């Protein structure tokens, strides 16, 4: 949507811009519930396609389970490759949701209201995809529970110095908290859906999910307390989870992995890719459901600014990594960064990463760019690809050329590797579509609150 459509009576750059046109006056509850009662034409084919991709994923996973990890391209020394790349990438995508809803809630950013539910759902589904990989990439996945200290008569326990055990804790916590936070936010809206459901069946279903919420004052009071509490603990998770994921690499001594800058670097990268994914999903939905008045250019602008900031942090991290290698002068680190990545077999990935994640987002300094939906969509796509390649670079390049030249080896993925990556994308989109179809994906009550506070501001 182009800046031209912003109503003239709105003075720009102010929060008033967050709700435009009719969205300022009409009964938003009715309007925002509409998607629940009707199925748009494009929904069915979209569901079929994404479901097929999901089945593809299931097939590939079963095949891997039956035959062994050997059906992947993994090899000595590149023993992690695609699976872990996808894992880090998906987890990263999963960060924007919590970031937007929790962080911005604490920072009392009004503009968060219309988009946070969407972002949270994205988080949950992304983490679901991510969680698949650490399990699947095990040589013997059926023993994954050995990473958990379950009561064992042999009294053999996990080895808690390993970053992988930290991962288990981090991912499971992050997923649980995200789900609780998301669901808690949904309860009042489920209640609205229940109260206004056209049929008894729907009334019943939404009733079940609404848990019997009725908006009593005492309920609201506790609700708000707990919601703030969850936001308070979810916010540090945004930082901790990807920091811990980064420690899978930082605690190893591989040149290109063993680097203190990794935790903040990974978090920044995660939020960058997360924001990109928000754009990629939100912009089409916004257009398809004609939500330009609820998700306004102001929202896009704010998100774009965050994208710009994170991309700058990421850029700084790249620079710092190279600088430290050069300054430290360690022969292995140097050859990893400058021979293998900058000039060697992975140069395409190295420079591609820089272009997609650092240079391209700089265009967002332009206000027009920040407010142009098509541009943001294209940019987000580039960033998304860039972030995946960056993870691939970090993981595969470092592994394929480490200390002894005798064990240097080039890596080529297998067909199954690709199938699984595409499959998770399909599964992710499938879940998103179901969410859009059956769940109020714009927080009704919060937007109403926003509507009211904006009205008060205006009257004041």
């Amino acid at each position, binding site marked *: 949507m182009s800046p031209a459509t912003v109503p003239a009576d709105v003075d720009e750059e102010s929060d008033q811009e967050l709700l435009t046109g009719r969205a300022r006056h009409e009964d938003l509850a009715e309007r925002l519930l509409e998607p629940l009662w009707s199925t748009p034409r494009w929904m069915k084919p979209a569901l079929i396609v994404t479901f097929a991709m999901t089945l593809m994923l299931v097939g590939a996973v079963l095949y891997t389970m039956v035959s062994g990890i050997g059906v992947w391209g993994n090899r000595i020394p590149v023993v992690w490759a695609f699976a872990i790349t996808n894992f880090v990438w998906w987890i990263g995508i999963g960060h924007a949701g919590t970031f937007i809803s929790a962080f911005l809630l604490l920072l009392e950013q009004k503009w968060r209201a219309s988009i946070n539910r969407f972002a949270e759902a994205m988080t949950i589904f992304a983490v679901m995809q991510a969680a698949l990989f650490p399990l699947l990439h095990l040589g013997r996945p059926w023993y994954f529970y050995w990473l958990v200290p379950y009561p064992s008569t042999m009294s053999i326990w996990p080895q808690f110095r390993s970053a992988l055990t930290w991962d288990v804790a981090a991912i499971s916590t992050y997923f649980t908290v995200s789900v609780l936070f998301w669901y808690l936010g949904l309860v009042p809206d489920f209640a609205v859906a229940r109260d206004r459901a056209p049929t008894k069946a729907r009334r019943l279903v939404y009733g079940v999910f609404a848990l019997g919420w009725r908006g009593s004052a005492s309920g609201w009071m506790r609700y708000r307390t707990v919601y703030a509490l*969850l936001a308070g603990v979810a916010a540090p998770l945004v930082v901790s989870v990807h920091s811990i994921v980064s420690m899978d690499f930082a605690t190893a001594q591989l040149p290109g992995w063993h680097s203190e800058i990794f935790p903040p670097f990974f978090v920044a990268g995660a939020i960058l890719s997360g924001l990109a994914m928000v754009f990629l999903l939100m912009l089409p939905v916004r257009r398809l459901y004609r939500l330009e008045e609820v998700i306004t250019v102001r929202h896009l602008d704010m998100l774009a600014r965050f994208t710009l900031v994170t991309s700058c942090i990421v850029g700084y991290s790249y620079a710092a990594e190279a600088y430290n290698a050069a300054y430290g002068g360690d022969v292995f680190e140097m050859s990893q960064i400058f021979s293998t990545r900058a000039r060697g077999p992975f140069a395409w990935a190295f420079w591609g990463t820089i272009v997609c994640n650092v240079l391209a987002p700089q265009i967002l300094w332009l206000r027009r760019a920040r407010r142009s939906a098509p541009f943001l969509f294209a940019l987000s796509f580039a960033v998304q690809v860039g972030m995946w390649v960056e993870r691939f670079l970090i993981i595969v390049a470092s592994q394929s050329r480490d200390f002894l030249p005798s064990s240097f080896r080039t890596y080529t993925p297998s067909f199954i590797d690709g199938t699984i990556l595409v499959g998770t994308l399909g599964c992710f989109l499938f879940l998103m579509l179901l969410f859009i179809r059956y769940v109020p994906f714009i927080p009704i009550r919060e937007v109403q609150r926003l509507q009211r506070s904006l009205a008060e501001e205006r009257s004041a």
Partner: protein
Amino acid sequence: MTLPEARWMARFATERDLLDAIPIVRRAGATDVDAATPVESDAVLDSLEIRRSRIPTAAFFAAVGLGVGAWWIEWWTRNESFPSDVGARPNVSSWADLPIVFESTVLGVAVSSFVLLLVALRLPRLRHPWFAVAQFGADDACWLAWAEPHASSSRHADLAAELAALGATTILPVLPDDAEPDAVENGAGSSL
């Protein structure tokens, strides 16, 4: 003559009307005064004088418990239950314990507070007397709920008139639909 306790709900178009009504109802000696609003409103909470929730305090202890528990498991498994030489690293390596301790603590807060919320609100439940009230939740109107212990019909009529004057569009009785008493549910003195 006295009647058994009666529960009533009044519907108000706007929150402002509701706020005006609350003191009146209270002055009339009604108990269990509560309100239902589409979106949360500080003003309503203030005028109902609902006390701060104690859930955070409880969640805090749950979190500390889980965190300490996690740390203890890590320490015990490594030092007491099955010590072994891993890369010549010392058995006491608390820095390596921190990530898991932190995550467990966070998990403690989240799960405990959510559970406590459900407990405090007696949720989940499918049915509630209010749902039986006509028009309840049909639109974004506000509702005021109260109980009149041993009130006489005449006094109720007066109150009703007063509320109507303040903009209460309808005033309906709340019929108990199940044995479960709802009294503790209400604001004053009942919050966990």
